[in-house]
């Protein structure tokens, strides 16, 4: 009998949560991570309301909210057309009943949480739940017997080479997953088109709830986060990134001014930047196989997507609850590992999952909004229930298929309270669309 039921590689959103949930079920869990916490990592670090709801279900939300601002309303401004909404309670409850069979712990607020804050809380929670957490632990190889992964070899915090064995090894080690690389796992559904994103942290202003702006092929967002700072993020198509990089601070401001002159003004005149500017374009989307003999993947390791809908952490939490539930049923002897993994896979590779994946990957191409999309945003104005459903759909609370359905779109159109008359983007739209194709940074 191996010493552990499960070894989790990676102790961040997917890993620490999975380890904690398994430990709470009474299983012997080892969680390892190469970092020591608190520790930062590239992240949009946004939790949609189902994300914060998971924290609440796990009794960790109070601890997070003690140091993190949270809001329920979010504003999208697309080519000057503003929509303010929030994810409705009934859709959140339906989501949790559908995915996890119970709707306890639902909260409607979202939060932007720095990873050096959140990951620390998760690691401590895993430890408190009874999981053995070893930080500063670099996994060097997987131990494979036959075709079965049975454990890991790695270097401990004091430099010792150690070997640990478990009934299952869980790869929760991010998009550049060591587990996936060691097993030589292929990637599926690859979508190389993605965004480049640059961001930093600013004090000096408080704009309240989060705002997301889109204009042409560029976008920006501001969200209040820890330390009384705001995350200010700009993104655009990765094919414009070379030109953007020639002058990162200048182009970050240029992008803000182009997408939202108001926000650009606030950041320029009031913003005090607290850190260097971070950036990435390592965001192409893919799926990997979910599970095999002795191993399973969770979080970004199994499916990574572009940051543009800021869904990664929320999906990692969802994956943690799903995989911990599936593995729990196997470890308790109720079902075989194959059955448990089939149920996990069924949910993670479902049609709804595919539709949302497509939604994100299409957005990530950062094509200018089409005329019909902008008209839809106008039609939504004043229709609060449908704006809220749009927000819920964007955040993957409600299925894409239920909002983007022909009869619904036609009804939205018919129910429109506003016309396009008040929005300059519709004046000579073809010329505007051509202008949008020009690389702003060239």
């Amino acid at each position: 009998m191996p010493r552990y039921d499960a070894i989790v590689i990676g102790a961040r959103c997917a890993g620490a949560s999975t380890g904690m949930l398994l430990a709470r079920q009474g299983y012997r869990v080892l969680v390892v991570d190469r970092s020591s916490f608190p520790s930062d990592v590239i992240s949009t670090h946004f939790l949609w309301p189902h994300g914060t709801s998971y924290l609440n279900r796990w009794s960790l939300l109070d601890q997070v909210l003690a140091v993190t601002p949270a809001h329920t309303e979010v504003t999208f401004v697309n080519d000057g057309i503003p929509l303010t909404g929030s994810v409705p309670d009934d859709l959140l409850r339906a989501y949790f009943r559908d995915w996890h069979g119970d709707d306890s712990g639902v909260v409607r607020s979202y939060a932007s949480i720095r990873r050096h804050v959140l990951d620390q809380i998760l690691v401590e929670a895993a430890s408190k739940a009874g999981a053995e957490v070893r930080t500063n632990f670099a996994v060097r190889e997987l131990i494979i017997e036959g075709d079965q992964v049975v454990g890991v070899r790695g270097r401990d915090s004091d430099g010792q080479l150690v070997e640990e064995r478990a009934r299952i090894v869980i790869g929760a080690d991010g998009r550049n997953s060591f587990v996936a690389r060691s097993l030589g796992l292929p990637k599926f559904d690859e979508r190389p088109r993605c965004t480049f994103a640059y961001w930093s942290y600013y004090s000096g202003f408080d704009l309240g709830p989060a705002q997301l702006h889109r204009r042409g092929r560029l976008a920006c967002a501001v969200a209040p986060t820890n330390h009384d700072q705001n995350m200010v993020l700009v993104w655009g198509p990765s094919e414009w990134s070379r030109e953007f990089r020639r002058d990162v601070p200048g182009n970050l401001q240029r992008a803000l001014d182009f997408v939202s002159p108001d926000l650009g003004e606030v950041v320029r005149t009031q913003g005090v930047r607290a850190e260097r500017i971070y950036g990435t374009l390592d965001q192409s989307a893919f799926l990997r196989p979910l599970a095999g003999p002795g191993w399973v993947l969770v979080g970004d390791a199994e499916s990574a997507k572009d940051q543009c809908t800021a869904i990664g952490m929320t999906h990692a939490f969802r994956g943690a609850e799903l995989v911990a539930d599936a593995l729990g049923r196997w470890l308790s002897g109720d079902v075989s590992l194959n059955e448990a993994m089939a149920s996990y896979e069924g949910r993670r590779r479902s049609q709804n999952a595919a539709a949302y994946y497509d939604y994100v990957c299409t957005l990530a191409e950062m094509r200018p909004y089409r005329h019909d999309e902008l008209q839809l945003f106008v039609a939504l104005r004043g229709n609060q229930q449908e704006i809220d459903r749009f927000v819920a759909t964007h955040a993957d609370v409600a299925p894409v298929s239920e909002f983007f359905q022909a009869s619904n779109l036609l009804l939205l159109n018919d129910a429109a309270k506003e016309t396009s008359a008040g929005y300059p983007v519709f004046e000579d739209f073809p010329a505007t669309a051509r202008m949008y194709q020009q690389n702003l940074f060239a």
Partner: protein
Amino acid sequence: MSLPELDQRDDDELIETILAAAGRRDLVAMAVAAAEVSEMTRNWATHIPWDEFGSLDESTLGEVVADLTQMWEPVDLQVDADEEYALDKNAYDFYRPAGRNLMTRTEEFYGWVEARRRTETWQYSRTLEAAPSSVAQITNDIGRRTRGINFNSQDYLSFNTHPAIREAATKAMRDYGPHSAGSPMVLGNTRISDELEASLGELVRADQVTLFPTGWAAGFGAMAGLVRQEDHVLIDRLAHSCLQQGARATTRNVVRYEHLNVDAVRRHLVDIRRRDSRNGILVVTDGLFSVDADWPDLVTLQRVCREHDATLLVDVAHDLGSMGPGGTGVLGMQHVLGDIDIVMGAFSKTFCSNGGFVASASPALKQYLKMFGGSHMFSNALSPVQTAVVLEASKIIRSAEGDFLRSRLHTAVTALREELTGYGLTCMGEPSPIVPLLIGNEKLARIANRLLFDRGVLAFMVEFPVTPTGSSRFRLQVQANHEPDEARAAAKIIADAIADARTYLSSAFGSTER
């Protein structure tokens, strides 16, 4: 934790420096720059040995350069632009075109259709080369021919090749000629039109029947005839397009309720009646749903409607004649014949012709719809040939031969569903002449459809806007003439095509719905 210094160099600059140093094989410079790289990036790119740059051997150095380049440089895509464009969009992306010239602004959509046609992923506008039976020969819209087991035609009892049906058509042609030459309100009807109304009235046990030139006209006409601006429509989210458009055309008070959810209907009715005790409410549903192959609980639905003074309209286009005792469809199966407020149907699925009808127990409703339904009064009547064919079909449907044909149909349906399920595929809904085979992703469905064309199975792929996005499927329409072996052979071909399409797209998504 100590927050990073503001004046540290950005990772951009550092990684550029590292790559430049790697080009000079300057491991020391690489290590110096790596030490400055942010904690964020180091923890993200865990596959890069940031702390070991000083001692890299040549092959590891190559890997590091490759990994960093991949992380840091935008990809240069080599793609088939046409195919990408064709697979990427859907029809409603073009629903609100830009510009004030109504004619030229259709060009963008046309460009997309052309890309779909060039890449042979356009499933529409195929043409028949001969009578469609269980096997058919067809030409696609770029002129390529194929022949295959046919699930692409709606002729559930295979009446199109039935001798008695053909004889009825010939006789009507002799007696009345091809043309009805007028509105049914003027002089477009013949004696057999009255006979047909009576026969349909007996079949659905609602004797006040009005004929319409198409099924679409019947659904739209019924709603346009009955519903006024201040009235309300509660409509199943997936009800047929003619009913959705009827709802939109008549009132802004439209609620699309969750598919089949009678509790939702009840809640909406309570809510509407709380606000509005004066105006009418029409509740609208299909019997057998045409791309989901399921049906509502009509017993409860009709009762709930009566409790709130709402009127129920049920579209039985797909089930009447092809299912249920004596061909009475979903109504007969649920023992609500004669009990539904308004029954509407189309002849094109089982009755072997264009045309539709609206039936109720009310002579007043009948006269009102004839006058105000629009599509009845202001269309030419069903042609005599069509009328005769439908009349003959309705007789066979109610006969012992009808029972025999339905049992053959059911056998083929069962064989097809079981075989498809055996390949791990998802047949939606209940056994019925419509077998919806779930594919999901539109790209996958379009490629599978392209592969299927040359492999001897004719199937219609339905995607948005017929189905919700991400929920495309093959709608397989089975006929009484299909042999169970034919159905099983087709199932294998379809399963292979889907598997090959998935490989082509390198997709790991499966077919479970949620």
